[in-house]
């Protein structure tokens, strides 16, 4: 994988040793700038945006200089012309995760950001309609957080706390 550090704005750590495809770890301030530079560099489509809660797996492998926080937003960009993918993982913060929205760069991320807000509680500044998308309106709590129980109704005839 060619490294894109030449075009990426300064201060961004790009390291492709971690996983098969290219990963970038901008800070929250460089986040929108980096995505804009990728888009101008030929990454036409933002394929996926999702939140991850690293409460129980805090010590995951991160390049040096990136201080891990509990929440992380993972963005997947795709370049149809160069047939290349890049993954941008931005640390979103511990208790009040807050990340600027990508709606002005890729309008397609509007629903994905609403889902990340709904299931994780990650706020997206300047998002046009930051409301719940999957859960009912008056649902309290964000289900995909690690401290949110599975909501498993104990099954009468089988009390073993197995994987199921």
């Amino acid at each position, binding site marked *: 994988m060619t490294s894109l550090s030449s075009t990426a704005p300064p201060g961004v750590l790009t390291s492709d040793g971690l996983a098969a495809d290219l990963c970038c770890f901008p800070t929250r301030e460089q986040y929108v700038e980096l995505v804009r530079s990728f888009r101008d560099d030929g990454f*036409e489509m933002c394929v996926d945006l999702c939140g991850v809660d690293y409460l129980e797996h805090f010590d995951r492998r991160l390049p040096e200089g990136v201080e891990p926080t509990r929440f992380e937003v993972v963005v997947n960009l795709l370049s*149809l*012309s160069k*047939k290349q993918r890049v993954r941008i993982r931005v640390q979103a913060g511990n208790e009040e995760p807050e990340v600027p929205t990508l709606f002005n760069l890729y309008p397609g991320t509007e629903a994905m950001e609403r889902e990340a807000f709904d299931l994780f509680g990650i706020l997206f500044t300047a998002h046009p309609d930051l409301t719940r998308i999957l859960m009912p309106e008056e649902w309290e709590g964000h289900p995909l957080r690690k401290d949110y129980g599975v909501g498993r109704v104990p099954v009468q005839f089988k009390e073993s706390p197995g994987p199921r």
Partner: protein
Amino acid sequence: MMSVDQYLPILGLLILGVLFGAGSLVMSAMLAPRKRPSDAKLAPYECGIVPEIEPPQRFPVRFYLVAMIFVIFDIEVVFMYPFAVVFRQLGLFGLVEVLVFSVTVFGALLFLVSEGALSWGPVKHLTAGMPSRTSSSTILRINSDSDQAA
């Protein structure tokens, strides 16, 4: 006397109609299980959502224009009933008369259509210079050697 039983079949038909109508109403009232018009049943059906935005009272005028077209044909049929009773005595003259009448009524329909009652206004359809396409002429086949990027 003769004239009375002339109307007998109409009377019979009337009674049958009333019998059938009233009969089905009574049967369904009698046989349907316990009926309580629960409030959900009174509410209009909105695909499962309880409606809280009540629909507006004023509908666009296009819906009423279509109703006008029906009125034309309704009136036309009403005038044809008396003709149908005596059309044998009238012979050719009656037939031509009715044809002239329906042509003039048809003129009204032509006027309405030309006024645009049936064309429902600007619809965002790609129609400019649209060739008549078949399901194989509208697509391109990119096989592996002539692989051009997006």
